[in-house]
């Protein structure tokens, strides 16, 4: 996979480069800021761009740069790495795009396997969300969502948490050691209980429906 990287911390950038190389990816460029990344990608193509959220142009150059990149190259995957897993940033990221996009904690992509899985899923069009954040969304519902969430079975909660991470049916099935068919059934039950439409057949739309549901109280802003 061809990967471009923008990160203003030289130490972390070098470490990530080594890991990307070890994972067998081709690095088309590694730069220290958003503007440099846009300039680089004007002459080089990449499958996925990896961006630090908090980098130049300040304050959150990763997000503003990603907006520009999504407009220029709609098919290029975007992976945000941050020191913080915050719902505030997740919502801003989902405004930039809801497919081929990911948000993970910097220290959580520290192995060839995890990094490759994350990049592969983004490259395949999925949303990838830091499990710590997905778990928090599912386990700490707001207000009136509490009763609905409490009505989910333990297995349904597991499925919802993995959905909130952006995992596909097959991905969820693999994690829970059940068949994709069983996952489908759970998802139908969950959507029934949450009162969401099941006609959101496309994977990323369904993930978005779940995330929007979990966060719906904040959209009133």
């Amino acid at each position: 996979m061809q990967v471009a990287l923008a990160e203003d911390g030289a130490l972390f950038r070098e470490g990530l480069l080594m890991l990307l190389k070890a994972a067998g990816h081709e690095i088309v460029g590694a730069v220290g800021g958003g503007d440099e990344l846009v300039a680089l990608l004007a002459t080089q193509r990449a499958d996925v761009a990896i961006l630090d959220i908090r980098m130049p142009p300040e304050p959150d150059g990763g997000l503003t740069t990603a907006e520009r990149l999504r407009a220029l190259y709609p098919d290029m995957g975007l992976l945000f790495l941050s020191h913080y897993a915050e719902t505030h940033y997740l919502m801003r990221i989902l405004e930039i795009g809801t497919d081929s996009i990911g948000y993970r904690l910097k220290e959580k992509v520290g192995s060839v396997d995890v990094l490759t899985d994350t990049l592969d899923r983004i490259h395949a069009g999925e949303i990838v969300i830091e499990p710590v954040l997905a778990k928090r969304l599912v386990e700490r519902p707001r207000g009136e969502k509490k009763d609905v969430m409490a009505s989910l079975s333990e297995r349904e909660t597991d499925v919802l948490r993995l959905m909130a991470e952006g995992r596909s049916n097959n991905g969820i099935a693999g994690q829970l050691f059940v068949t994709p068919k069983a996952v489908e059934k759970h998802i139908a039950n969950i959507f029934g209980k949450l009162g969401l439409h099941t006609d959101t057949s496309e994977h990323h739309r369904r993930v978005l429906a779940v995330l929007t549901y979990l966060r719906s109280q904040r959209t009133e802003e």
Partner: protein
Amino acid sequence: MTPASPRHDGERSPNGLAVGDPEALPGPRSVTRLREILQPDQDPDGDPDPADQVGESVDAAQRRRAADEWLRRRLLERQLHDGASLRISALALRLGLLRPPAPGKDEDWQDRIVELQDELHAVLQELRDVAGKIYPPLLDQAGLAPALRELADQAGVELDIEVSGPAKEQRFGPVAEGAAYFAVAECLTERPSGRDVGGSPELRVRIDRDQGDLVLAVAGVGARHLNYMLDQARPLGGSADLAEGGTPETGTITVRIPCK
């Protein structure tokens, strides 16, 4: 908190140290949890909080505030020592014990590395926790409303925030924003306990700008919250006034904090 019982009492790794997933804390006890978020080591059986005494004198308030500040510093130091430092020390020892894998034992080796990385994640979470108590990164990056929302979210507390004007006008500088954040955070901590969050009245915050002042209207509070607001506003030349509601938790406090 003692060194033997880290706050993040999540899963345990084979060596007995908590793997430290702060997300694994029980959810519904949000009032307790928020207190933990803001004041990690506060002894629940300690002296009654003097701030509960409504209408204390300015001198007394200043003394209490100064004392609080030193206690807060000591708690943060202790949290760094008992949390991150201790975990890093243990990691140094475990790294020292690491040996190259025996032939055919690569899997064990990988497991060991993953354990160490999990431990590093726990250390980072604790450092983030301490950093957030000094000055929340989201407050710096995104401003008052997003930072307060995140705080309420993480604690599972209901908080309704209303902001006026375009986003660009929502920044008030690090001083006023810091004071306003911690004033509201204290109110969140001081929500009536013993009541389920679902049953407790909602806290509503309105953020405005008026002639160079940051103006906060915090509804759903009572007289006991006024001192916290005054603590933050007064040293900056600001003010806090209470309009009483019918019950102790239905008043509105209006806080003004000059932005310069």
